[in-house]
């Protein structure tokens, strides 16, 4: 089986979740990544959904944070204040998955407006970036998405650079950005490339990044999805190609 680039993204996203982690996800690839992790190496990982769903047993394939498929078999159906305040702000959620229209050199995220164009806004993203210990971002790697500085900082990464997060009163954070070209990481620093996707080059990464991105001396290559991971993803988690329309032509 040959994986599509976004399938590799989802699988590499799943690998960011350790067994026993409490994770907050929206829908889309992060949800697939989290449910894949639960069904492979991290059966003890538990999900929190911002609408108030605590520890659900996800039925494939939800499309919304209030989808009944995402509310199944939960510990509790509560409120947004409980999920984002009582769990995320309270410090009980280790890892959050986020997206955004722009991610800058210091891993700040913009989901509010780009060049006068109105976007949906923060939702729970600012809360997750403010309080989780680790943020994982799954995104296509396009130059316009990776500017030197976001037009608007919706969700804080490392703000103006080293020390700025602490000075603002925010707790420490690790960020991992996983794209169809590479993995970039930062911890109170600028994003730096630490691994390449199978077949990608650092030159391609630099061509598609709007800031001068650093790279580790030795770059690992991301392991491609195993047959088991791909089978789970395709046949169990998204059998109707809701999140992978590119697979439809193959079927």
């Amino acid at each position: 089986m040959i994986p599509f680039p976004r399938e590799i993204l989802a699988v590499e996203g799943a690998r960011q979740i350790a067994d026993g982690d409490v994770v907050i996800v929206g829908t889309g690839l992060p949800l697939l990544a989290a449910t894949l992790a639960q069904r492979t190496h991290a059966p003890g990982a538990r999900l929190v959904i911002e609408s108030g769903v605590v520890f659900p047993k996800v039925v494939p394939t939800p499309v919304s944070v209030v989808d009944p498929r995402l509310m199944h078999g939960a510990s509790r159906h509560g409120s947004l204040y409980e999920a984002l305040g009582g769990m995320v702000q309270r410090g009980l959620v280790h890892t959050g998955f986020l997206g955004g229209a722009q991610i800058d050199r210091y891993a700040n995220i913009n989901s509010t407006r780009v060049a006068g164009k109105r976007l949906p806004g923060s939702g729970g993203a600012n809360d997750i970036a403010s309080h989780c210990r680790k943020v994982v971002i799954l995104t296509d790697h396009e130059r316009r998405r990776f500017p030197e500085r976001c037009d608007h900082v919706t969700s804080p990464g490392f703000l103006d650079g080293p020390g700025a997060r602490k000075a603002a009163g925010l707790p420490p954070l690790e960020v991992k950005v996983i794209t169809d070209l590479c993995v970039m990481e930062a911890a109170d620093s600028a994003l730096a490339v630490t691994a390449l996707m199978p077949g990608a080059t650092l030159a391609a990464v630099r061509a598609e990044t709007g800031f001068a991105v650093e790279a580790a001396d030795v770059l690992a290559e991301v392991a491609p999805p195993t047959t088991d991971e791909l089978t789970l993803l395709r046949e169990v988690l998204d059998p109707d190609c809701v999140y992978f329309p590119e697979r439809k032509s193959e079927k």
Partner: protein
Amino acid sequence: MHQLLTDSKVLTAEEAVRAFVTPGAVVGMGGQNINRCPMALVHEVARQGVGDLTVVGCNLSLPLDVLVAAGLVVRTEQGSGNLERYGTLFSWRRAVEAGAVDVRDHSHLAMATRFAAGANGVPFLPTRSLLGSDVLAGLAEAGLARIVDDPWGGGPVVLMKALAPDVSLIHAHRADPSGNVVVEGVTSHEVDMVRASATTIVSVEEIVPDGELNARPEEVTISGAYVSAVVRQPFGAYPTSVYRRYDFAEAEIKEYQALARRGDDAYASWLARHVLEPETFDAFLERADPGGVRRAELTESMRRYT
């Protein structure tokens, strides 16, 4: 028993909106994304053309977009405006980009914190969200948030100003005539928003007899103490879902989004035909789904997951 004759809050949507939604009101909007949006109440507001509204909520979705399309909204205070994978709110986006709707961006927790303050009768509550962000800068400039130092030495916190809507609109599973409300599934921001509001209209799938909920009051999600009017409206959240009752109607939501994105004459005539012309929400439902075949399908679809 003494309540039976005097205290019924049951009204029609037409009566409730006329009594409680006034021009220039701050409207607390229930629902989130594709779940339990108060569509019947919002259609009635649009039909009555109550304007100059400020709409507030955490995630604002389809109900806001319909009110914006009807030209009734001047400002929103929200955590997000979208329908997740079905896209942004196109009428809202157009109005915001044209400068016709003023926007106060929050995070979801920041909005929930404002409602919690309003619900508890205090002028503000703290959060540690927003620190360092441009969202905070915007709210500070608008006078809605302020950074202070924790008096016990824990570093900076953000005080969020209490928010008390003039009227909240929510759709729930059931209520009794005294306005005691039961919601099944998640409640998003709704409970604190309703408790913060001066008045609230709740539309419900079902009205249960007085006394039934009093036998198990711990199951009541919102006390009738906070509810002004109860409107019986089965499928009152369609095309969004009601947990354990009916699924969201994906095809209809996609159709709406395709029309709203274009924002042309076809969209205007859809709004006229589906929102403005039908005299009641039942008449709208019959027009959208003659004979109820689709409603039966959505009921069956929800049954599979609950």
